[in-house]
């Protein structure tokens, strides 16, 4: 029994932290998030060299062959820095391919991801809302010339910044994922800003796109469920780091800022709120770590543990984001000051891969069906 990280994982954390401290201060985050691609291509190549892009890819496909517990270390640190890059999207894309694709496809794509040449994203749902299987309604047109997709997928992460998409659709009552190249004619990528500019979101529009048999993979509900759950864990891992940043920045502010002759951190109105943040972060951290462990080590537990983690994190971080700004007083809500970037991230994180309502409902359903 060892509910902690190995020495190798701790080393990885130090490495990631150093990389982000050196390359991606919050000033740099602000620069990158305003660029047309929303990420830094030089840094992306360095991440490939460091092995982070192939982290969860099998060595058979030129990856490092580690798992989601290791990945959580990277995601936590990226969350701490609000690092803008299609990293989580690509890892979820990679995880999905690994679950559903055939050998030749894996061989064609996974090594490219590890080398930093391929980035990908999932385009699963048709309406803004819950990551629920009923929310996949795109139907393939079955014609004499073949299968075609006509429609759109909104709220696709890093839309326009990646070169492959796994798009969910239905045909004759079955569910499929099809791998589409961003260069496909008929595929249009647009992106529109959300309040969190460090997280790109956009729409894929699909204009009469032909589905090749080699690029489509049948998936059952359980597999799809797993994809959503892994996504929830991934976002929740970023939320740990981001929430810890809020706590650290606000604690520092409370130690330094004096009012009425005392550091404001002396007043229980401030210090107790910070203690409550600590309690919540510690707690969803435990839930996220455990959920990450179940992804490979205890798959039947994933559905529950992912929901517990994402539900707790969604409520807690949303409050932490608001209170972090509030405890900073007026300076906290200026564009110039960084704390507000974390408030925006808290709302983005809550809305993606299921908010607390969605996951709590999933938890109680499971409890009642036992």
């Amino acid at each position: 029994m060892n509910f902690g990280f190995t020495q190798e994982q701790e080393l990885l954390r130090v490495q990631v932290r150093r990389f982000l401290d050196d390359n991606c201060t919050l000033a740099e985050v602000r620069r990158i998030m305003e660029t047309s691609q929303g990420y830094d291509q030089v840094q992306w190549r360095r991440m490939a060299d460091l092995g982070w892009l192939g982290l969860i890819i099998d060595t058979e496909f030129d990856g490092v062959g580690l798992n989601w517990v290791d990945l959580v270390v990277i995601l936590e640190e990226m969350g701490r820095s609000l690092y803008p890059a299609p990293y989580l999207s690509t890892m979820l894309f990679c995880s999905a391919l690994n679950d559903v694709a055939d050998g030749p496809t894996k061989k064609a794509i996974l090594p490219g991801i590890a080398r930093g040449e391929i980035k990908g994203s999932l385009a699963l749902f048709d309406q803004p809302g819950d990551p629920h299987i009923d929310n996949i309604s795109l139907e393939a047109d079955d014609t004499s010339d073949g299968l075609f997709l006509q429609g759109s997928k909104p709220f696709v992460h890093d839309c326009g910044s990646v070169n492959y998409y796994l798009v969910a659709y239905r045909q004759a009552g079955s569910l499929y994922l099809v791998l589409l190249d961003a260069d496909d004619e008929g595929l249009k990528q647009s992106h529109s800003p959300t309040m969190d500019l460090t997280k790109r979101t956009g729409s894929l529009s699909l204009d009469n796109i032909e589905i090749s048999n080699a690029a489509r993979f049948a998936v059952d509900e359980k597999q799809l469920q797993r994809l959503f759950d892994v996504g929830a864990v991934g976002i929740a891992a970023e939320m740990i780091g981001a929430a810890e940043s809020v706590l650290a920045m606000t604690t520092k502010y409370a130690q330094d800022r004096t009012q009425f002759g005392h550091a404001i951190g002396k007043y229980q109105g401030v210090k107790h709120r910070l203690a409550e943040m600590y309690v919540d972060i510690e707690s969803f951290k435990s839930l996220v770590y455990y959920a990450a462990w179940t992804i490979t080590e205890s798959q039947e537990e994933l559905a529950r543990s992912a929901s517990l983690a994402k539900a707790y994190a969604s409520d807690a971080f949303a409050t932490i984001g608001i209170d972090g700004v509030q405890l900073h007083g007026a300076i906290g809500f200026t564009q110039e000051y960084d704390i507000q970037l974390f408030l925006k991230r808290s709302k983005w994180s809550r809305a993606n891969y299921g908010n607390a309502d969605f996951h709590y409902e999933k938890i109680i359903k499971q409890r009642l069906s036992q």
Partner: protein
Amino acid sequence: MDFEYTPSEENFRQEVRQFLDENLPAAGNRSADFMDTWLNKVRDKRWVGFSWPTSVGGGGGSIMEQVILKEEMSARKAPPLGTCMMGLAWVGPGIIQYGTEQQKQRFIPDILDSKYHWCTGYSEPNVGSDLAALQCKASRDGDDYVINGTKIWTSLAPFASWIFMLVRTENFGKTENKHDGITALLVDLSTQGIEIKPIENMAGQKVFAQIFFDNVRVPMENRLGDEGNGWAVTISSLANERSSIGEVTGLYTKLEKLTDLLSNSRWNGQAAIDSKKNRRTLARFEAKIEAMRLNGLRYLTQQIKGEPLSSETSVNKLHRAELEVEMGDFAVETLGQAGLQLRGQEAVVGTGYWAADSLNWPTVVIGGGTPNIQKNIIAERILNLPKD
């Protein structure tokens, strides 16, 4: 207990209604130049500065008539009675109470005509809620004061021509008796040595500014009240709290929007409005807003009866702070990914509005004194608990 109005009050209400019927198009139908004629018309009715004495050009309205005017105006979503918001709310009453005859003649008519904007300079960097700790300095030089220092979080400063500001003329750097030695000045923002640097908030708006004063000369005649007596001028100005009627109407309007939003949103195959949790949240908002309305009327009654009012306005300030944070956040949560969109993504209910709303609360929540400060005020002044 009696929620009826006197015949003369009812007459006044009818007068307001009739005026609005004749002069106020529905909210969607107001033309671009509507505001010009509107302001002239309400100015003619003496409804601008309605609570001010008629001797200075105000309306001389009674407390109840003010309430009726506000109720009717906000019920019809009428535009404000004048655009010089800070002048009408804070500066004008201060000048009326403490100003010289010359100051009244010089400033009050312009405020009533909304000729230009005023702003009010209290906060400074490193001062925060402890307003009396201000350090912006003014020293006497002949018939002038010479100001050096800075003011921050000055609302509307990017658009204002004049500032009502507090400076320190004595007691520099002391923590004891810090309320002494503060002086109130009225300063023309076009004076040499003033630099206004707008501050962008997290919703992308530039309503606040930091103002820098570098050897800014202000003639003695622009001092409001006695030298060193600025704290009293401010306290009386801050005490001139407006009733919360306008705010309550605004919150009810927001509640309607929120109810519509919930009624039109679906989650997981279920209408959002069918969730008992969401229903309860909306109803709880309603109870708080109605409590604010009734608290306001109860305190108003005490005011009319001449009973001493302590710090009861803090009660509604706390409610409002909570509601401003919670309602916007609840809307954004309900909208899911769509709620995050600043613009674009057609066919999404309420896009943009709620995203901005959920980032704009600090103006109210922090601007009006943080909730922690309001709780201290209640605990110390009303419950007689020890100071921190």
